[in-house]
């Protein structure tokens, strides 16, 4: 790539530039003249060089529309060179033209003009050189592919390249050079494949996300809690304290950068930066909070605004008052997002001599200005290297992240890459503003419109770069930008028009989004004209045509109506329904007017939308769109068509699905579940009609086809249902509510939020155990109990020589250790095996697991086998003191001698580690270990189980493992009043441990499909029982350990566990029951859980729907899932918040946690939906909101 600056110093080039202060008078210089303008002041438009290549510079950037291809076609055409020999450089800030932000589809319509002019000028100059060289007249020459030839067929020819061998020709842009006549176009107007796609399809393209510099570090920012707000006293003034020690342990951490409310971290590796950002503890002031924006109308009306009258022909109020049918309507638009698929990213390198920022910005020049201000640097010392990013459709966080990276790079003196998270991009991107449009009008007795009184409110501005606000560099005072006036003037010939825009400061951070204010304004115009037509009893297309005089609009409307086979009608519901499904068709037309009022028109666009509306579910399906566009001359018709498709799909998504949600703290739509967009199955058939206008100037096509969408769809829904919808998105719940007014949902009273007191208290075993011992003490009983002695010390030995143990014994011992989960509980620091120290938190103090490596002092190296066996079977340490029953000796006592002996051998053969774990120090009286003797007297039944000869060997082995080493009952059995496991019916009947429910392993299981031997076996082997679910929480480690256990032992456990099911089913029947449940729940669309349904569809369905895409990992089906059917939501809440980071088996894949993405309310909404749809026979869970908050807070003591 030839940089504009480099071209200024090169030989062998012809260069067209813009002198400072615009084109001015023609000042063509003699060929090969030296530079007359100082280099620093010129902007380079075009360079032809002696390699035969042409480079065009355009100040705009490619926002993912392939604009570079169209510009290349323009240059190739005017210069008569091959398209392949043209390179287009977009958005370079150094010496390339400054053409402002890439907005409003202006690239082709406005900024391409000087480039085209430059190409024509270069051709004129080169052809005159050629004529001179060949000694002919200019009009005797033809140019093709950069070679000038005599038209009369003579042999003489010369190429541009040859003409530029030496010298440096520099010409000031001459806007008067004649352009090629369109009749002679060869390149422009042809469908040209995009130049960037092959590299993008093979991973060779360098997006800004892919920029890597030597020595580059990774940064992340931590945004304030006022998510998505950028105005008010609190902005930049809310950070109270930063606890740097909270992340001191994160490896690779380089720096924590804090400037007022700007907080960032820098680390060697990306995941380290992510971890540091997530764990950094910050204290923020409270701030006023946000008023309700989910239904924005009232908030917008209440906010202060300044009316700006765009047009007033007088007399509208009187005319409406006198109308035969006066009509006043309000249309409301929601907050929406740009929603770039790639969250913004940037790399910055701050050095002594200046700053370079690699950026996906829409406006490199503005970013330079912002950075200069932020860093107090002269603008000349800042360079932007522009790379493509994910499509942005307006102002997203691209500039924000550039400034973030610059601050972090300055702090550490090295290049830093900052990637925003999905949640940050969603929460903080400047939103497309909500809008309220009031229309007054009416009909006279003949059905003619009497007046048009239009008022629109648009709270948005340019969204100052965030770091400027967070660092307090600029005050967070909301300024007002006059951008609510796009397409505010209605296209129809209404008499007595009055059009007012209420300019407003933003309420939440907002800026331009595709179809800026025109899309909402046109929604109002085009809905209202439809309402007028219906009221007048006239076909809506005919009514429009009656009131238009713009011939291109009339042509377009007629063409589109004809293509769609429009059948005139005078009222709704003319199409026959299919049962509950109603059909309708709607029309809308708009021209997108952009730029400062009165603005410039871009392409004309018209839609015919076909919808079907399900009366019972509220689902709206857009089945087909016929969309027509008059774009003037189309440089690349393939690109235009692609833009039309993109606009239709994106705007359909906005109209049917999209609305930013808020709570008092700010934006709550932080991922694609909270902000769903259109998916492939919902994409309509699209028929594009492009009106050929080769002789008209080219018009912007980047936004126009979005503009009529909302009204076309709303008009179609009206046609189908007879009900008028005036506030998108047209989601099923809104449609249903309007079609079948239901009684309002029972209002949730504040009592419902009362904390856990009303939750049935099933205490975790430790608390109960300790609690009861304490009570006994208080009763005086304790004194006697405390006197009971231990049973004496067993003499130390020298650690046995591990080489005496046979390999088979050690292997068996390893399996026994796995069965007993020794590794899980006796985990040492930094994951060292068996060294102890793993903490079991209890409300009475912390129990620390001991070191069971063969270290003679810190571990059990001095323990003889009898000492070991006594600890396992009776809960006594070698020195005779009682172990807390956190060590499950009441179960271990059932183990066979052979198992315990091999376990002993295995432990003695492990590396001795001298680590001394912290001592367990419980509060009085729980620190009195001798109390345990009394407890043991009551509850310890020492010894193995006698084999049951009536059962198989496998069953007996399974029982020994489940009841003994496996100590399943330690978690899965409820405990009695003294904290001991209950027997009988209650044995293995389920309990809650550490906030997780250990479900019943017996018939009391809530699983919808009974457990079978095959399911148990699968679960114990892989952590996945296809008809029940996957292991989560504490069970992942348990099952992972079982992988070293002999298969026969897992089978034996499954055999025994299956025998506990008194109403089991044979596997084939269990599978067919599961199939029935899947079919039944597939069709359930529970009412009143719309929010949860959306989250499920966006966040969960891909991996959990039965027919989802085939993906690596398990596909746990919620209709069969044990946790979904449990009486308690706890396990599901844990899994949604924390995910399953380390699966029980690598084949299962992992699940991400959503704690950082969902609010408590969103998790509760989601669970409400999951429960209602997938466990329809179970009662709804109560107090979900407060339970989510409790579990999120880490309070496991329910």
């Amino acid at each position, binding site marked *: 790539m030839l940089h504009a600056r480099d071209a200024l110093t090169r030989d062998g080039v012809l260069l067209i530039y813009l002198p400072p202060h615009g084109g001015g008078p023609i000042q063509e210089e003699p060929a090969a003249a030296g530079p007359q303008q100082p280099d620093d002041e010129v902007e380079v438009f075009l360079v032809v060089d002696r390699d035969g290549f042409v480079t065009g510079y355009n100040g705009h950037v490619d926002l993912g529309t392939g604009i570079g291809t169209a510009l290349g076609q323009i240059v190739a055409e005017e210069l008569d060179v091959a398209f392949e020999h043209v390179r287009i450089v977009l958005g370079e800030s150094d010496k390339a033209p400054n053409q402002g932000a890439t907005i409003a589809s202006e690239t082709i319509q406005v900024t391409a003009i000087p480039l085209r002019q430059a190409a024509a000028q270069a051709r004129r100059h080169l052809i005159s050189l050629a004529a001179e060289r060949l000694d002919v007249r200019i009009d005797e020459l033809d140019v093709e592919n950069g070679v000038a030839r005599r038209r009369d067929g003579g042999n003489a020819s010369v190429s541009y390249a040859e003409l530029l061998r030496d010298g440096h020709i520099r010409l000031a842009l001459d806007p008067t050079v004649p352009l090629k006549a369109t009749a002679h176009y060869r390149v422009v107007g042809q469908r040209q494949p995009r130049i960037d796609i092959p590299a993008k399809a093979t991973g060779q*393209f360098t997006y800004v*996300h892919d920029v890597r510099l030597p020595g580059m570090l990774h940064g992340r920012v931590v945004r304030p809690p006022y998510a998505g707000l950028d105005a008010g006293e609190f902005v930049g003034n809310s950070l109270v304290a930063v606890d740097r020690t909270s992340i001191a342990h994160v490896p690779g951490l380089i720096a924590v950068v804090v400037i007022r409310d700007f907080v960032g971290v820098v680390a060697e590796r990306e995941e380290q930066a992510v971890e540091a950002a997530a764990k950094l503890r910050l204290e923020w002031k409270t701030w006023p909070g946000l008023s309700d924006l989910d239904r924005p109308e009232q908030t917008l009306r209440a906010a202060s605004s300044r009316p700006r009258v765009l047009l007033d022909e007088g007399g509208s109020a009187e005319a409406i008052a006198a109308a035969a049918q006066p009509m006043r309507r309000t249309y409301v638009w929601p907050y929406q997002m740009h*929603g770039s*698929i790639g*969250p913004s990213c940037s790399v910055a390198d701050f050095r002594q001599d200046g700053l370079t920022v690699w950026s996906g910005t829409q406006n490199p020049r503005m970013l330079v200005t912002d950075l200069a201000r932020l860093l107090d640097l002269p603008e000349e010392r800042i360079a932007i290297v522009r790379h493509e990013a994910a499509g942005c459709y307006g102002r997203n966080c691209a500039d924000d992240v550039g400034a973030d990276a610059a601050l972090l790079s300055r702090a550490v003196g090295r290049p830093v890459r900052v990637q925003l998270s*999905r949640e940050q991009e969603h929460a903080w991107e400047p939103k497309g503003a909500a809008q309220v449009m009031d229309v007054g009008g009416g009909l006279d007795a003949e059905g003619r419109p009497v007046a048009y009184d239009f008022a629109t409110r648009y709270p948005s501005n340019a969204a100052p770069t965030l770091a400027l606000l967070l660092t307090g560099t600029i005050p967070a005072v909301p300024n007002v930008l006059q951008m609510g006036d796009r397409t505010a003037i209605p296209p129809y010939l209404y008499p007595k028009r009055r059009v007012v825009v209420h300019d407003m400061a933003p309420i939440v951070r907002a800026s331009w989004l595709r179809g800026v204010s025109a899309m909402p304004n046109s929604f109002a115009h085009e809905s209202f004209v439809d309402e007028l037509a219906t009221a007048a009893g006239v076909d809506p297309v005919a009514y429009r045509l009656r009131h238009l005089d713009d011939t291109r609009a009339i042509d377009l409307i007629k063409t589109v109506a004809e293509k769609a086979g429009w059948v005139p009608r005078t009222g709704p519901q003319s199409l026959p329904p299919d049962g509950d499904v109603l059909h309708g068709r709607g029309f809308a037309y708009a021209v997108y007017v952009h730029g400062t009022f009165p603005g410039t028109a871009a392409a004309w666009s018209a839609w015919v939308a076909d919808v079907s509306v399900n009366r019972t579910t509220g689902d709206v399906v857009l089945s087909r769109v016929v969309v027509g566009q008059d774009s003037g001359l189309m440089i690349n018709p393939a690109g235009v068509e692609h833009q039309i498709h993109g606009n239709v799909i994106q705007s359909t998504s906005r109209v049917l699905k999209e609305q930013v949600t808020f709570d008092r703290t700010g934006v709550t739509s932080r991922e694609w579940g909270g902000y769903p967009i259109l998916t*492939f199955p919902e994409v309509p058939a699209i028929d594009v009609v492009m009106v050929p206008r080769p002789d008209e100037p080219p018009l912007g096509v980047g936004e126009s086809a979005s503009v009529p969408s909302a009204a076309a769809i709303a008009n179609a829904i009206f046609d189908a249902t007879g009900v008028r919808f005036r506030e998108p998105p047209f989601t099923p719940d809104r449609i249903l509510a309007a079609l079948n007014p239901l009684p309002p949902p029972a209002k949730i009273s504040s009592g419902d939020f009362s904390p856990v007191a009303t939750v049935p208290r099933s205490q975790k075993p430790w608390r109960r155990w300790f609690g009861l011992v304490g009570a006994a003490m208080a009763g005086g009983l304790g004194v006697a109990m405390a006197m009971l002695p231990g049973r004496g010390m067993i003499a130390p030995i020298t650690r046995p020589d591990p080489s005496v143990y046979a390999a088979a014994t050690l292997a068996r011992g390893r399996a026994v250790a796995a069965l007993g989960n020794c590794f899980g509980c006796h985990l040492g620091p930094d994951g060292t095996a068996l060294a102890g120290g793993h903490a079991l938190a209890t409300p009475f103090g912390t129990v620390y697991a001991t070191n069971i490596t063969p270290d003679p002092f810190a571990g059990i190296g001095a323990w003889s086998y009898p000492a070991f066996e006594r600890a396992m079977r009776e809960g006594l340490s070698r020195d005779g003191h009682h172990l807390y029953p956190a060590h499950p000796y009441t179960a271990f006592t059932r183990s066979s001698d052979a198992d315990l002996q091999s376990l002993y051998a295995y432990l003695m053969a492990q590396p001795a580690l001298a680590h001394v774990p912290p001592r367990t120090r419980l509060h009085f009286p729980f620190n009195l270990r001798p109390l345990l003797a009394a407890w043991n007297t009551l509850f310890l039944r020492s010894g193995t189980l006698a084999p049951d000869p009536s059962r198989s060997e496998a069953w007996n082995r399974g029982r020994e493992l489940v009841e003994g080493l496996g100590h399943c009952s330690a978690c899965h059995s409820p405990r009695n009043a003294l904290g001991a496991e209950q027997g009988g019916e209650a044995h293995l009947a389920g309990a809650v441990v550490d906030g997780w429910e250990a479900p019943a392993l017996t018939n009391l299981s809530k699983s919808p499909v009974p457990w079978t031997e095959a399911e148990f076996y699968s679960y114990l082997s892989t952590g996945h029982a296809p008809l029940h679910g996957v292991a989560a929480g504490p069970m992942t480690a348990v099952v992972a350990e079982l992988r070293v256990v002999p298969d026969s032992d897992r089978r034996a456990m499954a055999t025994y566990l299956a025998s506990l099911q008194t109403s089991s089913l044979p596997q084939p029947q269990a599978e067919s029951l599961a199939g029935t449940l899947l079919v039944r729940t597939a069709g359930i669309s529970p009412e009143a859980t719309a929010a949860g349904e959306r989250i499920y569809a966006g966040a969960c369905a891909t991996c959990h729907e039965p027919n989802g*895409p085939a993906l690596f990992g398990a596909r746990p089906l919620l209709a069969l899932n044990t946790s979904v059917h449990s009486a308690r939501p706890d396990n599901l809440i844990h899994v949604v918040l924390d995910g399953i980071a380390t699966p029980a088996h690598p084949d299962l894949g992992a699940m991400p946690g959503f704690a950082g993405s969902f609010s408590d309310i969103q998790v509760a909404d989601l669970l409400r939906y999951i429960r209602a749809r997938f466990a329809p026979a179970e009662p709804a869970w109560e107090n979900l909101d407060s339970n989510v908050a409790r579990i999120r807070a880490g309070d496991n003591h329910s």
Partner: protein
Amino acid sequence: MIHLTVNGTSHALDVQPDVPLLYVLRNDLQLNGPKYGCGLGECGACTVLVDGIAARSCVIPLGIMAGRSVTTLEGLGTPEALHPVQQAFIDAQAAQCGYCLNGMIMTVTALLNRNPSPNDTEIRAELRGNLCRCGAHVEILRAAHRAATLVRRDRAA
């Protein structure tokens, strides 16, 4: 050390097992095909193939990839030697910004590995969890159909 094969080359990586595969591919192996889009398994931008099956690399900890074979967009083909699915996406001009393109190509490749003759409904269902904000869906669907034709032709040859 975690051993895995990426695009046919075996690697021993001294990286923590809980690091998402996506970061390892992008940062340690400097592969730009897989993209970060959400980190939550919702958008598909990060899709790679694991032993031939589509996988969301943003939610897969490196540790569970030990011993497996990962294919990224770069491993399918190069501009000089395109994989038929890549060829089909170029032929159909199936991208606007192209940020989602990796996920689309990898998911379609995985689908065709399983089912070389999918119908339109099957293609749409398979791509349901692959989001595109630019609205390149029409061209992507065309590309998927064309890819099926090219893949079948390749196999027949």
